[in-house]
C-alpha cells in the first residue's frame, strides 16, 4: 500500500465506520516524510486520527507509522486507543489519562505488544496470550471490537483474548 492507497483506505474507514457507528471523525493528521536527499521520494508517513463518539464523551484514536522498505511500505508502529476524553480540542494529541481498551505496539521489558484492559497500568502482554496475535491488529478490526465493548461486552470477550 503506497501513500495514495493509504489515503483511500482512510477515506474508506471514515465512510464505513463513521456515521453508521456514531463516530464523528476529526480531520486526520497524515504527515508524509520525504527523503532529504531526493526531496521527492516518500519514505513513509504518520497518521494520527481521533474519532469522538457522538453519543457520549468517549473516543477512538488511531496512530500508525508506515515506513518504506525495499519493495513495499510496512506498518512500523501503531497504537489504537479507546476511552473517555475531557475536551475535543487537539484530541489526537491529547495524552490519555483513562482507558477502556488500548493496543500498543510497544514492547515493555522485552515482552512484546500489549493490550490495556480498563486501566492504564493493566497491561496484558502478548506472552500471556495464546491469541490473538496483537501485532496483526488492524484499525478496522479495533473499531469493530470497540463497538462490541460499547454494547456491553468485556474487553476479553470483544477482543477474543485467550489466556495461556
Amino acid at each position, binding site marked *: 500500500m503506497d501513500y495514495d492507497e493509504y*489515503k*483511500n483506505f*482512510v*477515506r*474508506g474507514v*471514515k*465512510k464505513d465506520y463513521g456515521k453508521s457507528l456514531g463516530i464523528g471523525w476529526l*480531520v*486526520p*493528521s*497524515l*504527515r*508524509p*516524510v*520525504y*527523503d*532529504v*536527499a*531526493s526531496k521527492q521520494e516518500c*519514505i*513513509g508517513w*504518520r497518521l494520527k486520527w481521533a474519532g469522538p463518539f457522538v453519543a457520549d464523551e468517549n473516543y477512538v484514536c488511531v*496512530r500508525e*507509522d508506515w*515506513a518504506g522498505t525495499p519493495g513495499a511500505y510496512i506498518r*512500523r*508502529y501503531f*497504537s489504537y486507543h479507546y476511552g473517555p476524553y475531557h475536551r475535543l480540542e487537539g484530541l489526537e494529541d491529547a*495524552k*490519555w489519562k483513562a482507558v477502556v481498551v*488500548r493496543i*500498543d505496539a*510497544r*514492547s*515493555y*521489558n*522485552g*515482552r512484546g505488544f500489549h493490550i490495556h484492559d480498563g486501566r*492504564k497500568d493493566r497491561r496484558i502482554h502478548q506472552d500471556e496470550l495464546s491469541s490473538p496475535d496483537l501485532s496483526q491488529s488492524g484499525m478496522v478490526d479495533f473499531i469493530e471490537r470497540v463497538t462490541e465493548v460499547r454494547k456491553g461486552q468485556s474487553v476479553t470477550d470483544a477482543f477474543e483474548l485467550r489466556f495461556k
Partner: protein
Amino acid sequence: MDSMEFNEQPLTYAEAVEQVSKFERMYKITSEEFFASLDKGTSGVDVHPDDLYEWRSYFAFKSDLDARLATALREESGEPIQEVVYSQNPGIHARTKVQAVQAANNNLALAA
C-alpha cells in the same frame, strides 16, 4: 468515494530532530540509550505511553533520514562518511580521521 480533508503537512528532518531532542531533554537520556535499555527490559525511565510512541516514531524517521543522507553523500563523494572528531581544545577545528591523516602528512611534508 466522498471527498475528505487531511492535514498533510510533511514531517521535516528538522522537526524530527527537534522532537527527538525535546524528549531527550525531558527524560534526560539519549534516544539510543533509552530504546536499547527499553528493548532489553532494563530501562528505569518512566515514559508516558503517548510520549513513548511519539519519541519512537520521530527517532525512527530521523534515523531513516540520517541513513539516506549518509548514503546519498557517500554516493556523491565516492568515499565512506567519516565520523567527525571534535577537539576539546579551543582553536582546533573538528575534522574527520581522513582529514587528520592528511593534515599530519602535510605537516610532515612542511617539516621536511
